[in-house]
Structure formats: structure tokens, C-alpha cells
């Protein structure tokens, strides 16, 4: 199975490139991981492979033939489970077989087998809402397995589950995989959890964002089952982090020169996450510096956020990312030791200096009569450069940060930005 694919979904006006010139090949008998930040188009890529979305250009080949629309022999497991709430477990599993026109008795028999295999015995007649998250995803797996797919596509299948459940499900899946109990020959796994990728995949592709490209290809030459505490495993996880952070730092540098940073997309992050992270870094335990792979285990932080928070701090220059570790800057250290007012002042300075769009909003508000402006105006400006989704997220983050920094005020009811103290606020 070989495939070459590209995609250009477009918002209003000029097309926006979500995935650019991606070529990849899924080999027989491997689990291929797709890793990247949110917005890097990894889910889009998976949907193109599944035939749910048509690529704007390029072709997807499966068994030597081009794929148009969902192909037979490819099954998908969804992040949100996507179970039909009005069908019970066995009916949900039978769904795919009905669609293939399989005879009722045969469908029942095969569904029972899949349910047994996936460990759902005794739950056949339960409805999805009676099941826990882990059980629901098992139904999702059973539904995919029952049509005996050669290729299984998994879209962050474990990310909606709590840590322990996810771990159990991962182990169970890997057990079935190495015992060759599954009809499936190859798997694509989309994830943002780096350890998960290292734990399950044989090969991992790292996608960069805006536009999505394959930034790196990392083989994981460990045999299953893998041990998280194994030194070799730890080394690979650290390698992942350093590749990802190196990319983030590089990107920032490049953007600084090109002034593209004006509309840099920001992750959806509240101020408390940032402060919490800075404080954790400044604590005596870390002395202002830590390796991302280690800090990801802090109970107060959810694993998937670490990179986003680190990157946000990097953008604001409260910290610096280098080779898989993060280090507080001088400003970051001062911030950690200051009181509320001082922190706000510092944050305001950094926000206006390093997030050009926030400064831009400020400038517009000062110039306008009445010192207020509707949010649509800024949103459409952002949408010139970002996808609608990213633009909304970015604007929301700027609003949150701006409110904390008291640079401007935002009224959710009128959807208007306004300036708090027009006289005192001057953008640097």
C-alpha cells in the first residue's frame, strides 16, 4: 500500500494550506504513528487516508488502486468513540456488517466473536450510555475489527479516557497485535501523546504545523511489549521531545525574521496554566530548568499540555526551549518571585512586545474614537492568515491574556473590545 497525498481546505477567499506535499507509505505489519501539535493536520491526514475527505490534489493509493470515498478494508476508530446511542453494543458492532450486506445470522456470529475478542462479554445488550469510557472505546474497537480490515486507522483513540483506562486499553491492544489475533495488517495511530507514540508505534512521523508537513521520521526499533521505565525507551521519548522543541524554537526564529509572527497562532491556554508552569519551574526542585520529558509527569499538568504551555512561554519569552528542555529567562524568574501587580505589569510588557497582534489590537483601540472595536474586525484579520478554527482559538487566548494583563477589556455580550485606561496605556 502506497500513497502520496496533499490537501488544501480553504476558509473564505484564498486557500489555506493544511497539509502540504505529504508522501507516506504504510508498510505491512507496522504501526505508524502521526504526532504533532493540534492544528498540524494529523487528523485531516487520517481522514484523507480513510476516504472521508478528498484531498485537493494528490492521490491516495490502497492496494494499488486510488481511493475515492471510504474504501473497503479500512476501518476507523474515533477519538469520541462515535457510537450510536440508540443502538446497543451488539447492534453498534453489527453496523459495519449491515452496511456490507452481510446476512443477519452471519453478522450476529461475527459480532459475538469480535465482542469476545475485545473483552466485552456480557455487555452485548448494554447501551453506550450505560458503559464507562473505556468500555465504549472497546465497542469502537470491536466495531472496527468485525469488518476484518486490513488497515486500521485510529484517531487519538485513547485521549478521551483517563490515564489508567487508557493504559489498560493500550496494553490489551498491543497484546492482541503481537499475538497476531487481529486480522489487521497495518495501523495508523494519530496521537499527541508522545509516550503513547513511543509505546505503540514502530515508526513515527512528526508533523509540523501551518502548513502540515512531515518534519521528521523516527523509527522506534524496540520490540513489543515495551517497558516505560526501560532506559532505551526513555532515550527515545527524550529524543522526541528534543525534536519537537527544536522545531518550535526554529520556527519562532524564522518567524521573527519574516514578521509572520504578527498572526502567529496561539494555543488555547488560560493564564493559570502559564503561571502554574512558571512557578513549578522556579521551585527549588527544578531551579528554573527542566527536561520536558520529566516535567510531563508533574501531576498538576496534563501530559498533552506541556508542549503547548512551554511553547506559549517561549513565545512570551518567559522561558526558552532548547533541545528537549525548558529554562526560565531572567524575566521568567522575576515573574515567579513577584506579587500580583508586578506580575501583571511584566506580563503586559511581554504580551505587547512579543505578541504583535495584541499590540495591534491596543493600537487600533487607541486610534478609534470611543476606544472600542468589535471582535469581528480582529477575527477577520486573523482569518486572513489562519483557519477559522485557529483564528477563533488565537483570539480567545489573546482575550484571556489581555484581560489578565489589563491591556484591554472585552465584553462578551456586545462582543466589543475596549481599552481600560486609554491615557495610561501606550504600546511600546
Amino acid at each position: 500500500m502506497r500513497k502520496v497525498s496533499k490537501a488544501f481546505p480553504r476558509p473564505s477567499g484564498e486557500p489555506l494550506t493544511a497539509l502540504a506535499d505529504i508522501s507516506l507509505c504504510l508498510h505491512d505489519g507496522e504501526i505508524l504513528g502521526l504526532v504533532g501539535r493540534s492544528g498540524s493536520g494529523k487528523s485531516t491526514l487520517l481522514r484523507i487516508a480513510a476516504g472521508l475527505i478528498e484531498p485537493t490534489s494528490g492521490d491516495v493509493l490502497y492496494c494499488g488502486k486510488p481511493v475515492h470515498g471510504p474504501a473497503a478494508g479500512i476501518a476507523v476508530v474515533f477519538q469520541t468513540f462515535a457510537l450510536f446511542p440508540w443502538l446497543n453494543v451488539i447492534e453498534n458492532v453489527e453496523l459495519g456488517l449491515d452496511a456490507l450486506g452481510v446476512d443477519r445470522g452471519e453478522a450476529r456470529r461475527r459480532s459475538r466473536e469480535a465482542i469476545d475478542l475485545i473483552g466485552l462479554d456480557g455487555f452485548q445488550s448494554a447501551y453506550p450510555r450505560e458503559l464507562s469510557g473505556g468500555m465504549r472505546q472497546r465497542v469502537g474497537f470491536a466495531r472496527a475489527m468485525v469488518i476484518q480490515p486490513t488497515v486500521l486507522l485510529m484517531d487519538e483513540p485513547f485521549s478521551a479516557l483517563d490515564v489508567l483506562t487508557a493504559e489498560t486499553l493500550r496494553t490489551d491492544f498491543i497484546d492482541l497485535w503481537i499475538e497476531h489475533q487481529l486480522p489487521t495488517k497495518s495501523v495508523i495511530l494519530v496521537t499527541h501523546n508522545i509516550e503513547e507514540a513511543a509505546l505503540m508505534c514502530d515508526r513515527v512521523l512528526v508533523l509540523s504545523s501551518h502548513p502540515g508537513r512531515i518534519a521528521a521520521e523516527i523509527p522506534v526499533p524496540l520490540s513489543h511489549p515495551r517497558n516505560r521505565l526501560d532506559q532505551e525507551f526513555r532515550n527515545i521519548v527524550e529524543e522526541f521531545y528534543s525534536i519537537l522543541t527544536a522545531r518550535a524554537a526554529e520556527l519562532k526564529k524564522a518567524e521573527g525574521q519574516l514578521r509572520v509572527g504578527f498572526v502567529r497562532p496561539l494555543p488555547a491556554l488560560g493564564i493559570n496554566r502559564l503561571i502554574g508552569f512558571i512557578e513549578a519551574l522556579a521551585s527549588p526542585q527544578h531551579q528554573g530548568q527542566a527536561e520536558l520529558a520529566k516535567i510531563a509527569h508533574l501531576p498538576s499538568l496534563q501530559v498533552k499540555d506541556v508542549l503547548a504551555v512551554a511553547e506559549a512561554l517561549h513565545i512570551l519569552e518567559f522561558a526558552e526551549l532548547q533541545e528537549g528542555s525548558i529554562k526560565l529567562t531572567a524575566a521568567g524568574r522575576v515573574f515567579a518571585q513577584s506579587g500580583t501587580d508586578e506580575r501583571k505589569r511584566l506580563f503586559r510588557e511581554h504580551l505587547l512586545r512579543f505578541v504583535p497582534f495584541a499590540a495591534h489590537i491596543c493600537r487600533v483601540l487607541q486610534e478609534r474614537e470611543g476606544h472600542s472595536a468589535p471582535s469581528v474586525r480582529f477575527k477577520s484579520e486573523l482569518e486572513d492568515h489562519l483557519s477559522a478554527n485557529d483564528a477563533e482559538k488565537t483570539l480567545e487566548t489573546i482575550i484571556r491574556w489581555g484581560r489578565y494583563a489589563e491591556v484591554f477589556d472585552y465584553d462578551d455580550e456586545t462582543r466589543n473590545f475596549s481599552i481600560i485606561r486609554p491615557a495610561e496605556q501606550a504600546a511600546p
Partner: protein
Amino acid sequence: MEQHAEILIGKPWQRRIPGWRDFLAVLLVVAVIILLGLGGRQMVAPFTITQQPTISLSPSVLPGYALRTTMRMLAALVASLIFTFTYATAAAKSRRLEMVLIPLLDVMQSVPVLGYLSFTVVFFVSLFRGSALGPELAAIFAIFTAQAWNMAFSFYQGLRTVPIDLDEASRAFHLSAWQRFWRLETPFAMPGLVWNMMMSMSGGWFFLVASEAISVGSIQFALPGVGSYVALAIEQRDLRAVGWAIVAMTVTIVLYDQLLFRPLVAWADKFRFEQTAAAVVPRSWVLDLFRESPLLGAIGRPVSAGIEALARSRFSFPRKIRWARPLQAPQRLGDVAWLSLIAVALVYVGWKLAQFARPTLTWDDLAIVGRNGALTFLRVVILIILASIVWVPIGVAVGLRPRLAEKVQPVAQFLAAFPANLLFPIAVFLIVRYQLSPKIWLSSLMILGTQWYILFNVIAGATAFPSDLRECASSFHVRGWRWWREVMLPGIFPYYVTGAITASGGSWNASIVSEAVSWGSQHISGLGLGAYIAEKTTAGDFPRIALGVAVMSVIVISMNRLIWRPLYALAERRTRLD
């Protein structure tokens, strides 16, 4: 004209101010109604129905009458369902049809139900000359117009808001379009559809009673049913018979609710999309009986197996023609052709309409209608305000006492479903007896049946009000007016708006039967647009009925867009508790 909030706020087609689409849609609807009536009138000029069944006032005939009334109701429900499945599906699946069908639906639900009646009666009667089938179908059509629009709207919205992950799953697993419709889209839209069916049922009873005995110009008929029974009782000034009719209707509504809607609601609960278990699971003893009785189960099994097999089969063409890449030019060309077709149709009906109106209508007519419209508008606004002042505090008081709410809520829902026009004779009798001013006292009839929507929605809101917020308010000693303004009123606001929208729509509808009433030979009129339409209907003055109906539709649409929709949007944004 049974507006429901979720319909007003309709996401795919959301606009605040009445736009050109509305105007064109009004034109189209009014024109089609008139042309139907006109065509009918041309087919048979003066005309009477032979073999009018005689209506008896003996209480012993009432069960039979009630049964016939119920059968009409069911027939209309089936017709509405068929309409819903075709119209809404067409609108949801085709972008071009959607452009026309949805604005049209929005207008159709704003036309007063009895406004259709005067035209459709002529049409149906002429279609089946002399046979009772004509009026029968006209009555059924009246109920149809009271329910179909809502149901279609809710189904359309259901189809348009199918969760994306389920849609992807169904495509990834190769479901055919037929299978998707029955296994994903219809189940997803089902709870909304059932709820809307139940809500518009109350409107249905109201218009059924109003449409069983009607006279439009020279056409007069009375179908055997509870409505005709009441009409005859009014003519003969028989208050006792009115009492019997009320009893019969009460029993009918309770039975209908228990035997049809409770089971439906309980059954539709399994299609709820939320993945969490519901706090209160709707139950129905009838449904339980069906599920547990072995005999009924044995009868039901082959039926359900048949339906299931049907829903499971693929019914798709073996090969689909597919375009390699989306074709830009032909699509645009198609759009242009489609829009010009609509434009031609509009110009044609506009011209026809002008031709129809010019000889008879003058600017004076418009002024009169405008004045009457303003009067009715004033009444509706004042009545909604009065009803709110009365029922909001009561509703809150009831809703905060769960035990009491449990008992009061079904009563309030029943009162909302009860056709208030059965109670009119009593009120009219009192007005006549005590020489009260009809202009003021007749107004109260408009809201007699619809005020309960405010009550039961407020009760629902107060019941759902989070107890932690209440406890918080009392621990901070928030009391008196501050408690109302800052705690309770914002909390129930979305519910209140939902209730008030329904109440206002219902009042407009009711105005046609309540602004002009009679008791025996005595006629009293309170003036207003409703009285105007009623009067012209009796006289068979079609151009003026059309004018009145059109003006009423325009007022209702404007009120929805300028008052209710912004209020609802505000409620959604600001005060939703979740």
C-alpha cells in the same frame, strides 16, 4: 403559528431583521393560498353541501363525536409526518431547495391557521362537490397546518445538526444513504420531533374545534364532532351541553396523552444523544405493558422485525457516479438557472396577486386593517405582560417546591393542551350577562389557553434551577427584590422566553376566534385584526381575508424577528445554566 423557541433560533438560517427573503416568501405563501381558494371558487360557484349530517345535543352522542374528532387528529398527524419526512429531508439534503423551502416554512408557520382555513375550505369542498369528504379534509388540513410546520422545522434542524463524528463513522463503515437516513439521521432527530409533535398537538385541538363547524360565505357545514356540538350549543344557548363537551374533551385529551404521547416520549428517550444517563427517565405504563406482555410482544415482533429489516437493507444504486473533482462552472450555472426560475415564479404570483386585489381593495382597506392590527398587537403585548406578572411568581413558587411541582406540572401541561375555545361560551355568557365591555373582556379569551405555556415553562425553569446557587444566595442573605432580579429571574429567563414565545404565537392565532364571538343570536365583537378576519370570513370576502391574513403574518414575523429572536439569543448567551 405555534412558534417554538428552538425553531425561532434556527442556526442554519439565522437573521435578525426581516429581509427580502421574508418578503418574497410572504408573497408566495399568500398568493398560493389565494389562488387555491380562487381556483376552487371558479370551479363551483354557489354551492351547498347536500346531506348535512344533523348534530345532536344529547350527551349520549358525545363519545362518538369525540372519537370522530380524535380520528381527524390522527389523520392530520399522519399527514404531518409524511410532510415532515419529505419536506424537511428535501430542504436538508439539497442546498438549492433549502434556499426556498426554509424561508417559506418560516412564513407558513407565521400565517394564522384559521387564515388558511377560509381558502382551503373552498378548495376542498369544490374538489369533492357535495360530499362531506371536502369539509372533512378541510378540517384535517386545519390541524395539519397547526402541526406540520413545527415538526418539519425540528426534523430539518435534527438532520442538519447530526454530530460530525457519527456522520463520519457512518460513512467510514459504508452505510448507504438509505441506511444512514434510518439508522443515524432519523433517530437523532426523533426526540425533537416527538416533543414538537406533542407541543403542537394542543394547537391542533384548538383548531379542530374551530374548524369542524365553519361558514365561509355561502358554504356552511358542521361535521359530527365535539367542535360542532359546541357550536350548536352556542346557537341554542345551552350551557349544560357546553359543560358536557368540556367533560368529553378532557377525557379525550387525557386518553390521547396516556395512550399515544406518553409512550412515544418514553420510547423516544432512547434516541437522546447525550451519553450520560438521564436524571429522570420518562416512563409510560402503556409502553411498559407493551414491552412486558408476551401476547402483545408476539404480535409486535414480526412487525418490528420487518421495520428493522427495512432499515437495515441498503437500497442503494450499485454504482455511484462520481466527479473526480468538484465542478465549479456547471454548479454556478445551475444556481443561476434555479434562481431565475424562482424569480419567474415570484413575478408570476405577484402579478396574479395584483390582478386579484386591484379591483376590490383600496388604500382605505389597508388603513382599516392596519388600525385593527395595531389594536390586536396592543392586546397581545398587554396580555403577555399581565400573564407574566401573574404566572412567573406562581411558577417560581411552585417550581421551588419539587413535591408540589410534580403535581402541578401535568395540570399546567393539560391546561395548555385543552382547547380554550370550548370555554369561550362560558366567558361570553358571563360578559353578556353582566354587560361587560367586549373590547376589554373579550381580550382575555385570547390568552385563556396560551398563558399556561408561561406557567409550565417557568415551573420547569425553577425546578431546574441549581440548588447550590439558591443556597449560595440565601447564605449571602440575598432577599426580596434583589433575589428576584439577581438570582431567580436570570435563572428562569431562557425558560420564560420559550414559554412567552409560544404564548404569543398562540394568542395571535386565538384572536381570530376570540375577538368576535356569539351567544345564540347575540354577536359581540371586540374589534381588532382577528375580529376583522372572522367577520370577512363569514361574509366570504376573499380579498379582504387575504389582506387581513397577510398583515397578520407580517406583524407576527416582525415580532418574532425584532422581539423574540433577540431575546432568545440573549437568553442563550447570557443566562444559560449548564
